């Protein structure tokens, strides 16, 4: 399905066309878990080869980390859940997210089940003081590598480290990394604070109440975004050399590393639209993690962002700024008052290779000078400001109030412009049909042309009716999938009315 060819042949509406390209690939409602992963103090990982899928139908030969034994999933699936069961195959992209607790001693047993031609492999746990199992002489067992101790094919190496401080960290191969990381050998470690800060409450689907042992790092929701890219030609070359040498000894794989020409741009191993589909969906057996962030007005979202590729990908999140909490797990505090944060406010993260950023995003609608909930004087709507000016529990708002969290200073104010003729506007697939947030019984005169029949609205006007924002790479050519727009590094983030339950149940 080449969208561009279709478009240039004269299909009238590019946006709708792009929407149609997505229809049928997305579930209208997903079961997610905010940050799915595996937990414990001992992890039995394997490195092996398999195929990952792309929305254009390509199956990409990949290497990755997976589970060698049944792990403990976190969050654990709810009893009787209708969603897909958590999985940890022997190869996945990215590797299993290891969720551990601050202070624990972590043991990772890595077994190299890669094909013979791939040679030794290993894991670098960036940001930790790692001890590896002793190097063994003879054909099997751990071997000394350049960056860390390696496991030859068929062997196992053990790494131990203390999860010294909370945060988000990258792990990745330390063996022929220019090839193995490209092939998919990377993942994330999340260290939860041993004693979350006093005064923070754990959100219903969050891993912890605070990101760090610090009261300024409370959060309500969290999402992990791992940015990477794929040059499929490298994968094809690697596959050919693997097939050419089924049994050891094999020459080291030699592929064209430069010029680098990535044609797939992935977040959490998937491209748009697959990225927004359910976590653990059977459609992507080796890409279990999604990227489908949601938030209620006024909540704090912890963004955990890692650059896992060779390239930087400027990650622009529409809607508002985010406050950077930490880089590489190092909390940024004021040098003069350590009770205060010092990280910058940003609207685009540089997403540096190998670096992680933790940040807090929030959205309230404050200061727009019109009522985003479409209230009008005399409609009996209520907005009583709390201390900070919002309609919340503190000012008597029921949690089910459609306008929970409203910025009361703009209550009842109309939009100060008149809408254009609905016949000359095109609607988007995430547009809930009105300029307003939440389910509406009237649209304030802002009529618009409905989506063409058969187009699946991803933001149901009578159910969810959120505000959708594009979160994407701002090196815009990276929001394509092998020359096709839309694709690549795009997610739609939804600000949902508080009355819409953001279901992250597994």
């Amino acid at each position, binding site marked *: 399905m080449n969208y561009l060819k279709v478009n240039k042949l004269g299909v009238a509406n590019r946006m709708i066309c792009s929407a149609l390209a997505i229809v049928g690939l997305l579930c209208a409602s997903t079961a997610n878990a905010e940050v799915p992963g595996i937990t414990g103090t001992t992890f039995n990982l394997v490195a092996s080869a398999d195929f990952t899928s792309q929305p254009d139908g390509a199956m990409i030969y990949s290497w990755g980390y997976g589970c060698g034994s049944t792990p403990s999933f976190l969050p654990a699936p709810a009893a009787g859940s209708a969603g897909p069961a958590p999985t940890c195959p022997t190869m996945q992209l990215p590797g299993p997210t290891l969720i551990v607790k601050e202070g624990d001693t972590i043991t990772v047993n890595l077994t190299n089940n890669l094909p013979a031609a791939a040679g030794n492999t290993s894991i670098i746990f960036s940001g930790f003081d790692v001890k590896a199992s002793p190097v063994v002489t003879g054909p099997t067992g751990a071997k000394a590598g350049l960056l860390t101790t390696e496991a030859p094919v068929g062997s196992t190496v053990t790494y131990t480290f203390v999860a010294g401080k909370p945060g988000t960290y990258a792990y990745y191969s330390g063996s022929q990394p220019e090839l193995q990381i490209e092939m998919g050998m990377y993942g994330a470690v999340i260290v939860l604070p041993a004693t979350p800060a006093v005064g923070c409450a754990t959100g219903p689907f969050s891993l912890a109440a605070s990101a760090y042992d610090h009261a300024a790092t409370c959060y309500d929701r969290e999402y992990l975004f791992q940015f990477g890219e794929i040059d499929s030609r490298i994968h094809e070359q690697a596959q050919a050399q693997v097939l050419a040498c089924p049994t050891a000894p094999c020459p080291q794989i030699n592929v064209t590393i430069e010029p680098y020409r990535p044609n797939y741009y992935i977040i959490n191993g998937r491209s748009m639209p697959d990225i927004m589909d359910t976590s653990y969906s059977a459609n992507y057996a080796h890409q279990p993690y999604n990227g489908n962030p949601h938030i209620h007005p006024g909540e704090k979202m912890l963004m955990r962002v890692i650059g896992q590729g060779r390239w930087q990908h*400027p990650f622009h999140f529409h809607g508002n700024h985010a406050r950077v909490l930490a880089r590489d797990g190092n909390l940024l505090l004021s040098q*003069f008052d350590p009770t205060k944060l010092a990280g910058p406010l940003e609207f685009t993260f540089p997403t540096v290779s190998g670096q992680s950023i933790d940040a807090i995003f929030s959205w309230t609608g404050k200061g727009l000078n019109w009522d985003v909930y479409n209230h009008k004087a005399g409609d009996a709507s209520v907005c009583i400001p709390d201390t900070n000016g919002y309609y919340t529990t503190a000012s008597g708002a029921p949690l089910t109030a459609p306008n929970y969290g409203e910025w009361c200073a703009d209550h009842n104010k109309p939009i100060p412009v008149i809408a254009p003729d609905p016949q000359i506007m095109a609607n988007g697939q995430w547009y809930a049909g009105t300029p307003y947030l939440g389910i509406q019984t009237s649209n304030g005169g802002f009529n618009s042309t409905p989506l063409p029949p058969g187009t699946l609205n991803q933001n149901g006007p009578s159910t969810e009716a959120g505000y959708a924002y594009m979160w994407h790479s701002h090196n815009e050519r990276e929001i394509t999938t092998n020359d096709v727009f839309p694709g690549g590094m795009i997610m739609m983030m939804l600000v949902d009315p508080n009355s819409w339950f953001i279901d992250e149940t597994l």
Partner: protein
Amino acid sequence: MTRILLYYRGFAALLCLFAAMPVMASSFRVQCPATTTLHPNAPVLDVLGNPIEDPAHPGFVKCQEISGTDGFATMGDGNQIYLFGFGALSGRQSIESGLPGTQLASVFNTTGSANAGSIEPAEIMNQGILAANAPGPMMSIDEDDEFFLTLSNVGMIMRPDLFEQHTVHFHGYPNASSFFDGVPDASVAINIAGSFTYYYTAPDAGTYFFHCHITPPEHLQMGMEGQLYVRPRQNRLAAGTDLGTALLTANKKNPGADGVNCSDILCTGQTPLPAAAIATGTSGVAQPVGGAKYAYNDGDGSTRYDVEYPIQIMGFDPNFHYVGMTFNPEAFVDMKDKYFMISGRSYPDTINPDPISTLGADGVSRISQPQPTLIKLAQGQKALLRISDLNITEFHTVSTVGIPMTVIADSARLLRDMAGNNLYYNTNSITLGGGESMDVILDSSNVPKGTYFLYTTNLDHLSNDAENFGGLMTEIVVN
């Protein structure tokens, strides 16, 4: 209540220009109310013609109109390049002088004024077609303003096969509503022969930028981007006012704010009080007589500058632009910029003080790149560089020689920790990817008179396609 001054539709004669268009009438409609609920009184002008601010209703109603269109630009090697772009339909005199085109409502609505908005459909079409600028018309507003931005889609006459909508995305704008965010997937987008008026307030000063969000890898590569910044209310303080006291007072207008600390983690509508002012509530720095210009509500005068230069980093791939004019499928994987530009021009065009015009396909020459970026300072002055990056393929490092840069802001926010300590830093280079902005101050106090350079140290970008010279560079002249 909003008053719509001008409303036209049913201009069927235009259809001859767009025989293939499915719409049956034009729906151009320009909205620029003289007064609003927030600004109920039209401003009174002083003897110089400047508006007098009403203390009870600070700020003004400001308006701008742009076209979504196509056109041509002249690259540093003299080659023409085809654009999708935004053109000026108001503030044209200002735009052609390299300035922001944003106007007071009273100016915008004065028919016949050189900076008035185009209202009649025929005028919109005549002024809009083939009039794309690189970058698009610059916009600037002040905190407390209301901004009515009308986008009129006049179609892309070189590509009659396309029925493209266009939008405006205010990039980085705080607490954006999805409706006016310009993402077609999440909102509405205006078809050809129609207008859409975006409404914005100006809640937080800073260097933002704007661009079209239809098929971004195509429309941004083709040139649909521009500069946008919001000036702080600190500029407008009366002479003698203590900057720290004023910031404390302004912060306290946010419910729940003590004025010293931010009432939320994103410091919405607030700036942490500078540490030096916390104990007494005053900074000891007063607004000078005659006023001063600041980049942010710093409360301590540390972002004061004398001259400002918006700098937009751009890149064009001539192969993509050629394909974009010739009805062929476009390749994104192999996109490779060959023209590296500051505000639409490569060196040495960057220092040309005049607007650059380009001959269009209809034999008419139009202004295509109005913005020179020759940075001029009298010795001792400070220049504010509002640097934004809207190239869509690579990261760029921009360096200075001879004059160190002081980075004062990132992503349109002052670099200050939540305890009030400035985190500015001196550097000779900054690195930005697409969608990032930084504010930098050049201080010429201890700099000998002479000519210095602002240029990319991605050295292969100091070229104009095949010409091994030029690229992303301009001059800094200290007199």
